[in-house]
């Protein structure tokens, strides 16, 4: 009779991942690891040089060429007009500041939370921060009507006894972005010193001289490691509030104004969340390319992209939360001008962009990134993360020139039509970022080998009951 009972389907636990799949459980001799990192740095294929040449040409023509053309003839060659005083330039500026949150999130926040999967990706993403800040830093020059007088903004004693207006959000931008640029450059440099010393030891000739100076005379003494750890720890904790404050301050360029749709108290957290969302997505995009082209498959494994993709899903949900907050509040209690803006987004000329933004930022991540197979597929991840960055660029485009098209005096409403200059300069900065990254990848070891080794030292496998689990030691 027991045999007549319906058979219960046996539930099978998902099989445990092969420990050898995990970087920190797959140690190789240190010498071998160093070679794997240095090999792609020492050889440069013709494809590499061709890419560098193309990017350099794009930078020269699209970025600097068009920029000087605009400086010579005036801002009128761009599409900005009354009442849309800020257009694609500022949207691209905010986009690059957003990407800059990539590195700090991975190398600071994940470090503070002891997320071990951050070990091989910290430097590659922190370099993204530095270079995207360099690109963002160009735009305060580019969008000025009189770019040659940009030094008026710098607080320094002068003959006219004129200082900066520190009540202006643009002055806050200057100080905040400078702080973040200096901070993140130092923060990418500090953990790089032991790896630069390792590189120095394996180079000869003029290369060795460069690394000798860059590594400052590092020998790996105990006190050197100790002071390095202390400095990195302080930096990691300190740069997180700086990162939050920088994008908050950039969002305050809009929130502090009286423009309808901009004057919102949610812009601070909204923009910071959007920045981390777009930054972590950009990290995935760039690292997938780096892994393929530099053969760093030993260091950058499925587990890393899987973990980052989960983060992207979380931030997509967080971004959706803030977006809906902003939208619903305006929809419900906003004035008639606010409603004009909502109509503009849903049915006006920017509607296709708005729907595309919702598709890339909300629909795609929610529908795909929960699935493990998608998260472990490089092609899928690459397309999804590029889509997310397109969506985030569209978000800035809609908020900045989009909202400026409507105000309280209907006689003064106007449409914004971007011109070739603006598109060209935006593409030029993308090429500039890529060029800087390509050049850096040959000079700087992209993987912090000592941090990977430290991680491998702390990871062991141990038996609990009938199973074997991974155990992580606290080394400090």
């Amino acid at each position: 009779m027991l045999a007549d009972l319906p058979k219960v389907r046996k539930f099978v636990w998902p099989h445990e991942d092969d420990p050898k799949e995990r970087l920190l459980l797959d140690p190789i001799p240190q010498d071998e690891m160093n070679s794997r990192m240095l090999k792609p740095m020492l050889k440069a294929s013709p494809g590499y040089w061709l890419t560098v040449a193309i990017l350099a040409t794009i930078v020269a023509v699209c970025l600097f060429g068009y920029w000087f053309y605009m400086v010579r003839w005036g801002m009128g060659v761009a599409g900005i007009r009354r009442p849309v005083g800020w257009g694609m330039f500022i949207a691209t500026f905010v986009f690059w500041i957003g990407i800059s949150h990539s590195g700090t999130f991975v190398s600071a926040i994940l470090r503070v939370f002891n997320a071990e999967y951050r070990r091989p990706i910290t430097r590659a993403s922190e370099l993204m921060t530095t270079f995207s800040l360099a690109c963002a830093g160009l735009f305060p020059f580019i969008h000025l009507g009189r770019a040659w007088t940009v030094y008026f903004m710098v607080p320094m004693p002068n003959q006219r006894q004129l200082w900066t207006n520190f009540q202006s959000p643009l002055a806050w931008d200057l100080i905040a972005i400078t702080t973040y640029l200096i901070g993140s450059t130092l923060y990418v440099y500090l953990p790089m010193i032991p790896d630069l010393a390792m590189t120095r030891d394996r180079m000869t000739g003029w290369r060795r001289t460069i690394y000798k100076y860059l590594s400052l005379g590092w020998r790996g003494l105990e006190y050197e490691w100790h002071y390095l750890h202390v400095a990195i720890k302080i930096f990691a904790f300190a740069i997180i509030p700086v990162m939050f404050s920088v994008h908050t301050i950039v969002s305050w360029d809009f929130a502090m104004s009286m423009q309808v749709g901009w004057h919102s108290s949610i812009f601070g957290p909204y923009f910071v969340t959007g920045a981390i969302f777009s930054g972590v997505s950009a990290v995935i995009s760039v690292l997938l390319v780096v892994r393929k082209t530099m053969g760093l498959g030993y260091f950058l494994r499925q587990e890393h992209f899987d973990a980052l993709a989960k983060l992207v899903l979380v931030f997509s949900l967080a971004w959706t939360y803030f977006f809906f907050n902003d939208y619903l509040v305006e929809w419900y209690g906003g004035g008639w001008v606010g409603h004009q803006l909502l109509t503009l987004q849903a049915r006006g000329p920017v509607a296709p962009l708005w729907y595309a933004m919702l598709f890339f930022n909300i629909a795609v991540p929610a529908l795909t990134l929960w699935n493990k197979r998608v998260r472990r597929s490089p092609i899928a991840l690459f397309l999804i993360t590029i889509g997310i960055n397109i969506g985030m660029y569209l978000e800035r485009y809609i908020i900045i020139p989009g909202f400026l098209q409507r105000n309280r005096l209907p006689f003064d409403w106007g449409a914004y039509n971007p011109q070739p200059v603006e598109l060209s300069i935006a593409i030029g900065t993308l090429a500039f970022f890529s060029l800087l990254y390509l050049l850096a990848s040959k000079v700087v070891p992209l993987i912090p080998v000592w941090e990977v080794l430290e991680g491998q030292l702390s990871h062991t496998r141990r038996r609990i009951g009938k199973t074997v689990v991974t155990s992580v030691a606290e080394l400090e």
Partner: protein
Amino acid sequence: MAEQKQGHRWTMVIDLDKCTGCQACVVACHAENNVPTVGPETVSMGRAQHWIRIERYWEGEYPDVRARFIPILCQQCGHAPCEPVCPVFASYHSDAENLNIQVYNRCIGTRYCANNCPYVARAYNWFDPYFPEPLNEQLNPDVTVRYRGVMEKCTFCIQRIKRGQDQAAAEARSLHDGDVTPACAQSCPTEAIVFGDLNDPQSRVAELAKSRRGFKLLEDLGTDPAVIYLKGGASHAG
């Protein structure tokens, strides 16, 4: 030279019941302040370069269509939103004259002030100004010609205010009402625009400011504008 006990509060009263929308004020402002004419293509792009503009709204259905006009210029706000956002102090407040000052050679051209003005009162020099012959011989020597990349706006003809003050000082007297007339007020055929010092109890603006027809544009924003509009009865010109 007699110093006034308190500074001036330059105020403009515009009577919308008298305004015919003739645009004489617009043209006079161009002539007085060296404002370039930018051409029809530029204007259709949304880059009209007027310091004062007549905004016209159509109301109603045929045959009861009415046009309503309102001349809008820089309101010289007491709490000007354009001032705190300028990073280089190119737009600041003069406490003595209660005017919003624009300093052309300090402006670096960020255009934040224009974005923040709820009256869209500011005009930007998108290109270098071009004065076709013989307009280049008609430039006012009291006013700078602005270069490309610089923001400009109505100044309440501050050069005329200064000349009036210099004249009064030379004659060792204080300013009287009517000593200072901006170009727009001077050229208005219906005398719809009246200008003067609100702190002078004998001035025409002080009298008109008490009118029950008075209102200020977008007053609820708290910008404290120095321009008072008068609107009461209906008229063909709205």
